C-alpha cells in the first residue's frame, strides 16, 4: 500500500498518536483511558506506520525488537507491586503515593508505574504478534 498521501500522513500521525496514547495512559486514573487502551493505540500507530512505509522502516524506527517490551513491562509492573514491601513494609501490591501531585500528571504512585508496565506489555504483545504474522505471511 504505497500511497503518497498515507505515507506523508503517517509520518505526522505517528508522533501524534503516540502522544495521544500516552495521554490516554496518564488520564486513566481519573477519566476513561488507561494502560491497556493506551497500549493498543500506540500499537495501532506503529501498525499504521508499517502499512504506509513498509515493515522494515518501522522496525528500523523502533530499533529494538518489540518483544523486548514484554519483559520490561512485566518487570516494571512486578517491581511496582514489590515497591510497597521495601519502602513501606506493606503487603504486595498495596498502592503507595508521593505526597504532592506533580504538575500536568497529577498524583504519582505505584499504580501509575503498574499501568505503564501494562502499557508496555500490550504494545510489545500486539506488535510482536502482528510483525511476526506479517513477516511469515
Amino acid at each position: 500500500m504505497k500511497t503518497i498521501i498515507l505515507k506523508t500522513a503517517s509520518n505526522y500521525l505517528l508522533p501524534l498518536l503516540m502522544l495521544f496514547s500516552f495521554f490516554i495512559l496518564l488520564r486513566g486514573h481519573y477519566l476513561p483511558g488507561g494502560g491497556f487502551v493506551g497500549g493498543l493505540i500506540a500499537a495501532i500507530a506503529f501498525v499504521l506506520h508499517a502499512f504506509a512505509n513498509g515493515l522494515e522502516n518501522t522496525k528500523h524506527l523502533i530499533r529494538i525488537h518489540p518483544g523486548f517490551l514484554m519483559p520490561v513491562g512485566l518487570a516494571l509492573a512486578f517491581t511496582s507491586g514489590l515497591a510497597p514491601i521495601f519502602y513501606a513494609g506493606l503487603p504486595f501490591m498495596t498502592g503507595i503515593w508521593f505526597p504532592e501531585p506533580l504538575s500536568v500528571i497529577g498524583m504519582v504512585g505505584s499504580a501509575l508505574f503498574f499501568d505503564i508496565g501494562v502499557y508496555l506489555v500490550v504494545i510489545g504483545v500486539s506488535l510482536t504478534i502482528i510483525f511476526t504474522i506479517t513477516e511469515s505471511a
Partner: protein
Amino acid sequence: MLAAILLGFLFSGLLVFTGKFLKGRWAVLSASIPFVLFVYFAQFIGRVSSGEIISQHIVWVPSMGIDLRFVLDGISLIFSLMITGIGFLVFLYTSAYLKNHEYLDRFYGYLGIFMGAMLGIVLSDNVLSLFIFWELTSISSFFLIGFKNKEESSRKSAVLALAITGFGGLFLLAGALILGSVAGTFTISEMLSSKELIANSPHYIIIVAFIFIAAFTKSAQFPFHFWLPGAMKAPTPVSTYLHSATMVKAGVYLLLRFTPVLGSTEFWNSTLIIVGSITMLYAAMHTLFRTDLKGILAYSTISALGILVFLIGLGTKEALLAACVFILVHALYKATLFLVTGIIDHETGSRDITMLSGLRKVLFPVAIAGFLAAISFAGIPPSFGFLGKELIYESTLHYGNSAILITALAIITNILLLYSGFLVGIKPFTGKLPERFSKVHMPSFLMWIPPLILAILCILFGIFPSIIQESLIQPAVTSLGENGGEVHLKLWHGFNTILALSAITIGIGVLLYFLIKPNKKVETAIKKLEFISPKTMTEKFGNGFYYFSTLWTNYFQNGYLRHYVSTIILFLVGVMGYTLLNNTRYRLVYSSFTALTIYEVITFVIMIAGILYTVFTKSRLAAVAALGIVGLTISLIFVYYSAPDLAMTQFSIDTLTVILFVLVLYRLPKYLNLSDIKTRIKDGVLSIAFGGLISILALEVLAEPQGSEISEFYAENAYLLAKGKNVVNVILVDFRGIDTFMEITVLTIAAIGVFALLKLRMTAKERITTGIKK
C-alpha cells in the same frame, strides 16, 4: 532430621556439577553419605530405646495443614538404620560393580534421591508429606529400574513399576485426604487420639481400602505383585536396595505406621490376613518354577512381604513382634543373597541356576556369605532367621480359632522359602566346578566384604539376640501401640510345639531341595499359563487403553480449527443450555425497558446488515471488513450506555483484529472454496443456538438479585483508598491488580507462542529447502 533427609537430595544435586570427578577412582567416596547418615541415626538408639520420641517440627504450608513434622520412634529407627546401613554397603558395592560405567554418577544421583525419599517416608509424621516422599520413591525407582535404558525390556519394567506404584500413590493421596478430614488433622501422631472417631466414621472402610491399595501396590501384594519380578531388570545393587530393605518395605511400613490408628478392626485384620496369605503362598510356589537366581529371589521377596502383611493382619502383640523381627531378618539375608547373586553374575556372566555349581572353589568368601544367608533364609538354628520363624509360628499358634489353618499356611510357605534359600545361597557353590568357570576369580574386596558383613550379622543376631532386643525391637513394638510387657528374644525355647514345627519345616524343606531339581522344562510349562496372570491382564488393559485414547484423540484433535471451535461451542451449548433451561429465573419486564432512540435503531440496523453481509459475502476481505463494522457498532452501543472505557478498548481491539485478519487472509489465494450448503446450515444452527444461549445468560445475570455491595465498595473507595476517579481503571490497576498482572503475563505467553510457532515453521521450511538443494 530435615537435614538428614535432604542430604541425599543435596548429594544428587551436587552430582550434576561434580559427577565427572566422582565417576572414576573416587566413586567409593560417595558411600560416605549413607555412612554419615547411619552414624547419625545410630546415635539416637540410646535415646529411643529409653522410650523417648525425637521429633522436629517445621511449618511449611500452614494454610493447607502441611507441616514438615518428623518423628523418630522405634519403628522409624529400625527402618532408618536399614535404609542407611544397607544403603552404605550398596553404595560401596556399586563403586566396584559398575566400575567405570559411563553413567555411574547418574546412578549415584538416583540412589541418593531414592535414599532421601525413603528416609522421608519413614520419618514423616504428616500424611501429606509422607505422600510426597512416597511418590518420590516411585519416581526415583523408575529411573533406577530403567537404568539400562537401552534395553526395551528394562524400559518396559520401569514403566510397569511406575504405573503400578504410581496408581497406588494416587490412592494413598485420596486415603490421606479423607483420613485427614475425618480426623481433623494430617499429623499421624495426633490421629492416635481420635482412633474411635475414625473407626466409627462412615468413611472408615474407604480410608482403609485406599491405604491398603497403596501399601499392596508398593509392597507387591497379590494381585499387584507382578511389577517386582520385572524390576529385576535393574542392575543388581538396585535390586538389593529396593527389594531387601527399602522400596517394597515402604508398604509394610505404611501398614505398621497406621496399625495403631486404623488397626484392630475386623475389616483391617481379615483383609490383611487373606491378601498376605495368598501372596506368601502364591509367590513361594512360584519359586519352584524359576531357574534365574534373581527370579527366585524376586518371588521369595514377594512371599516374605506376604508373610509381613499376614503378620500385621494377625495384629496381636506376638505377631507385631514377629513382624518387626522378620523385617530385619529378611533385609539382612535378602540383601546378602542379592549381593552374592550380583557377584556370581558379574564374575561368571550367568545367573542360571541349572548351570552354576562348585563356585566355592573359586569364590570362597562369597560362598561363606551365601551359605550363612541361606541358613538364615531357611530358618535353621542358630541363625537370626530361625528366631524370626519361631516367632511367626508362636503368633500363628496363639491366634484364636483358626490357629491350625494359618499355622499350616505359614509352614507350607516356610518350607518353600527354605527350598528357594538353599537354591540361591548353597546350590551355586556346591558340587563340581564346570570347566568354563575354572578361570573365575575373586572380585574386588569392595564387592565381597558387604555381603559377608551382612551374612555375619544374620548369624550374630541369632546367637546374641540381646544386642537388638532392648535397643531396636522393644522400642519398635512399643511404637506400634503395644505397651504392655517386655520383649524377650531367645534362640532356645526348650522342647515344645514350636520347635517341633520348625523341625518339620526344616526336614521337609531339605528333602524337597534334594528331590526337586530346577529345570527349564517346568519354567517353560508355567509360562503357558501366563495369559491368565494379573500381569498379562494389566498389559492387555494398558494396550486397550492406549488404543482407545489414540482413537479418542484422533477424533477430537484432528487438526481442523473449525472442528475444534464447533466442538467447544457444541459442548457449551449442550451443558449450559441444559442447566439454564432447567432453572430459568429470568423474566422480561417490558415496562422496565427504556424507549428506543432513533440513533440506537440505526446502529442496530447497521449491525444486522454487517452480520448478514459477513455471512453471505463471497469475498474473504469483505467478510472481515463487515465483521469490523459489527465490532464498531458494538463499541457505539457501549458509548450509548455510558461505558466509555469499554468502548475505547473495543474500538482499538477491533481495529487490530481486522488488521490481523487482513494480514493473514491477504496472502491466501483468491480462489474461494466455500463450504457446501449442508455445512453452512449446520454452522448456522450452531451459531444461532450459541447466540441464543448467550442472550439467555445475559438475561439470567440481570435477573440475579443485585449484589451491589462489591460495586458500592469500589465506587466509594476508589478515590479514598486509591486516589483515582475512574473506578474501572482503579479496579484494574489497584484493587484487582494481581488479576491484571496475571493477564498481561498470559498475553506475553501468547505472544511468545505465536512468535515461536511462526518462526519455528520458517526454520523448518528453510531446512526443507536446504535439503532439496543437497
